[in-house]
């Protein structure tokens, strides 16, 4: 025998199920009066620094059908590349930007829209910057463990070309699954769970 490492195991995940919106966006699901406002509903206010953008996301299953019961959370840096988090030790982020958003996909169209700002670049390791990106976390009925991916910006070609995370994607044909095109004032990001266009998901 040897000494025990005394580590615990992480609680195993379970699907968010079809009624995730009762818990995480109660007002959206029609339960009013319990909490005033759904958490993550608004990321910006009048004073938020940076370029205003929309992020229009859909999650599509293996048949190409958009999920109408998904819940999407995003997490991103402010316009200077700082996160609004106690574990951000490089400086103080814009207090008028939460960096975190949560939306249910629309029960008819399957789309969700975040009003946000274009994030700045953050380091991968000392001296190496990542391209501007937004982290995504997706849960729904039928998803047993939340899925992690990232959205990059099509109009950041030079930064994308030197991004160390995108560079790690062996099959280059899959890189565009992480890159959102601009349409009007919003970036459009389709997340494919399966198939030829399957989005690159991360084990973070």
């Amino acid at each position: 025998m040897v000494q025990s490492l005394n580590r615990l195991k992480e609680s195993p995940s379970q699907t968010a199920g079809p009624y995730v919106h009762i818990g995480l966006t109660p007002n959206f699901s029609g339960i009013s009066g319990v909490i005033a406002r759904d958490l993550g509903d608004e990321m910006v206010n009048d004073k938020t620094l940076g370029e205003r953008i929309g992020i229009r996301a859909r999650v599509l299953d293996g048949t190409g059908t958009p999920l109408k019961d998904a819940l999407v959370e995003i997490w991103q840096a402010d316009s200077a590349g700082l996160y609004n988090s106690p574990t951000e030790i490089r400086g103080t982020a814009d207090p008028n930007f939460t960096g975190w958003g949560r939306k249910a996909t629309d029960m008819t169209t399957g789309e969700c829209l975040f009003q946000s700002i274009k994030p700045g670049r953050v380091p991968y390791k000392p001296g190496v910057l990542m391209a501007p990106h937004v982290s995504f976390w997706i849960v729904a009925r039928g998803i047993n463990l939340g899925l992690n991916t990232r959205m990059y910006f099509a109009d950041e070609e030079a930064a994308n070309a030197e991004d160390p995370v995108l560079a790690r994607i062996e099959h280059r044909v899959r890189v565009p699954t992480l890159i959102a095109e601009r349409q009007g004032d919003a970036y459009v990001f389709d997340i494919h769970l399966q198939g030829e266009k399957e989005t690159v998901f991360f084990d973070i």
Partner: protein
Amino acid sequence: MSAETKHPPEIGAFFQRDRSWHPRGLTPDYKTSVLRSPEKALLSLDNTISEITGPVFGHGILGALDNDLIHNFAKPGESAIGERIIVYGRVLDERGNGVPGALLEFWQANAGGRYRHKKEGYIAALDPNFGGCGRTITDEDGAYAFRTIRPGAYPWPNGVNDWRPAHIHFSVFGHGFAQRLITQMYFEGDPMIWQCPIVRTIPDKAAVEMLVAALDMQATIPMDARAYKFDIVLRGRRSSVFENRLEGN
């Protein structure tokens, strides 16, 4: 200020997730997973600042009844129908440390097994005094508690006669986006647990047992509410003093 600011934050990367301990994506006995599970290998990524950081919520977001599902949707002077219970426990990390300032959000069916939702089709009655959602934030030791009614089991469209065991859904925020977790709590002694296709997506019996809350008669309030203890474990952080640091960039 909220509890999480009392100690300097840990900033290490998280331990690699043990994906053989969690359910796999593709679990055909839970039919919805078949078209919703990625087929290609995930890209492994040692945490960057984007994964190490995460939003933290102060106690200021909480309303007085957020942790009381018996009353938070009920008309004044009334309360939800069902067996009154207290659910309490701690949020820990894999190193065994309490996680202060963790946001827990929970949702559940009513005592008859019916959810308050547009897409809910079960014939069991709605309880006019039960909404089915609540939230709380852990204290400086990682401890939490809330009051609710014990939810009922309910049938669901998968097999022709599949029923979910009584359960409460939990969403957990620790301190990093990579710790984000959704899980479910089951109740000690429920024979339905071991028949459920969603429970059985978890490959290891010991992992399932982590999700079964223990009846605790010592924490039970006489003539009022029984208590169930449910601890939740989030990913731990690496904390070697020799770890490369990201500051100064």
